[in-house]
């Protein structure tokens, strides 16, 4: 049955409608969970609030197990799921830039729009910086095209790399995630902050 677009059950245009609705739901939940507060977001780096870690990892493991069960029941063909191809160097550089921007600005791209939508000026400034970055990247593309495309690894999976089943890998990730949740909550007690 799934993926719906790849199997031509819905068109790409309909897909955009779904994406729009899911995006609104995503933003609503982000806002509701307090992700429009840059102090809360930055808390994960200082240990006083690890809700970002907990929310995103919970989402990841829920989606992961859900997909594996859908695949088990034959409701989705995982080989047709789009996986971002890995260009190792640009992935590392992008991660560093993104992480630095996250600490400095207090937002990640999605949450900055969340913050801007409730009128936070720092979030709006962040969006300006974000667009500036996109502009610089686009205009200067010839300069870093070689670096950008270097070390292409295809679409590697950790489970394939380690030679284990996807399901077993999922179990390991779930256990690691719960371990991190536990450490995160321990850190929250260790580095408490009264108000943020």
């Amino acid at each position: 049955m799934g993926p719906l677009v790849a199997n031509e059950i819905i068109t790409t245009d309909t897909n955009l409608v779904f994406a729009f609705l899911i995006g609104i739901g995503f933003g609503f939940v982000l806002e509701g969970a307090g992700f429009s507060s840059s102090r809360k977001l930055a808390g994960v780096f200082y240990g006083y609030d690890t809700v970002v870690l907990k929310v995103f990892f919970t989402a990841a493991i829920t989606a992961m197990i859900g997909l594996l069960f859908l695949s088990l029941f034959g409701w989705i063909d995982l080989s047709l799921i789009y996986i971002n191809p890995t260009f190792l160097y640009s992935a590392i550089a992008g991660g560093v830039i993104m992480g630095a921007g996250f600490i400095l600005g207090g937002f990640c791209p999605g949450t900055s729009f969340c913050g801007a939508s409730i009128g936070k000026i720092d979030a709006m400034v962040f969006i300006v910086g974000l667009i500036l970055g996109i502009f610089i990247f686009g205009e200067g593309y010839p300069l870093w095209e070689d670096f950008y495309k270097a070390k292409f690894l295809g679409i590697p999976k950790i489970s394939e790399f380690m030679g284990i089943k996807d399901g077993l890998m999922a179990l390991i990730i779930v256990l690691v995630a719960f371990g991190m949740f536990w450490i995160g909550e321990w850190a929250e007690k260790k580095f408490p902050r009264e108000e943020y």
Partner: protein
Amino acid sequence: MNSRLLLAGFIIPMALIIAAVPSNTTKQYKLTANELLQEAVSYEPYIHPDNVADMLVQQDPSLQLIDVRTPDEFDKFSLPGAINIPLSELLADQYVDILDQDVKMNVFYSNGSLNSNEAWMITRQLGYSNNYVLQGGLNYWAETIINPVPPSSTSPDEEIAKYNFRKGASMALGGSVEGNTAKSAIPAKPVITSKKKKKRVAGGC
């Protein structure tokens, strides 16, 4: 605390289940245009008339000839043991068990190879295996099996073999699709089989 335990109590057992069950390898089949092209150009589906004739002569039970022409054409002439699945009826429910199986070797044929190719492509797209196409269709069958052109420098053995082969083939043609007529042709067939082997050796040299 309670909600945390609830979450862990739900997700960890689910992860245990997914780690324990074998992963689903059934592919919901839909070949991309590229994959289908790769299969089509590799000549994987084609079975040469010699091989089909050989299997017919040896009464190979794994062979299932499928005539994808119209019932009228099928009634006029068909290969022995063939069943009729007109191309327009290919997707009918009653034929699924014939087309989607892993025991027999289905060989589609039509007059040329166009319709049989189409049948093969559709079944391939559905993910069915063990379906093949008679190379060149009945036209090529007639050329190679019924009216073989003797090569200029062939041994007499080969000519006899081909003559016998033709005789066997026309005998098979004389019968209709029914099983009993096919059986009546059996006595002639073992003779042909032995000659066929000679022909192969000659061809190898």
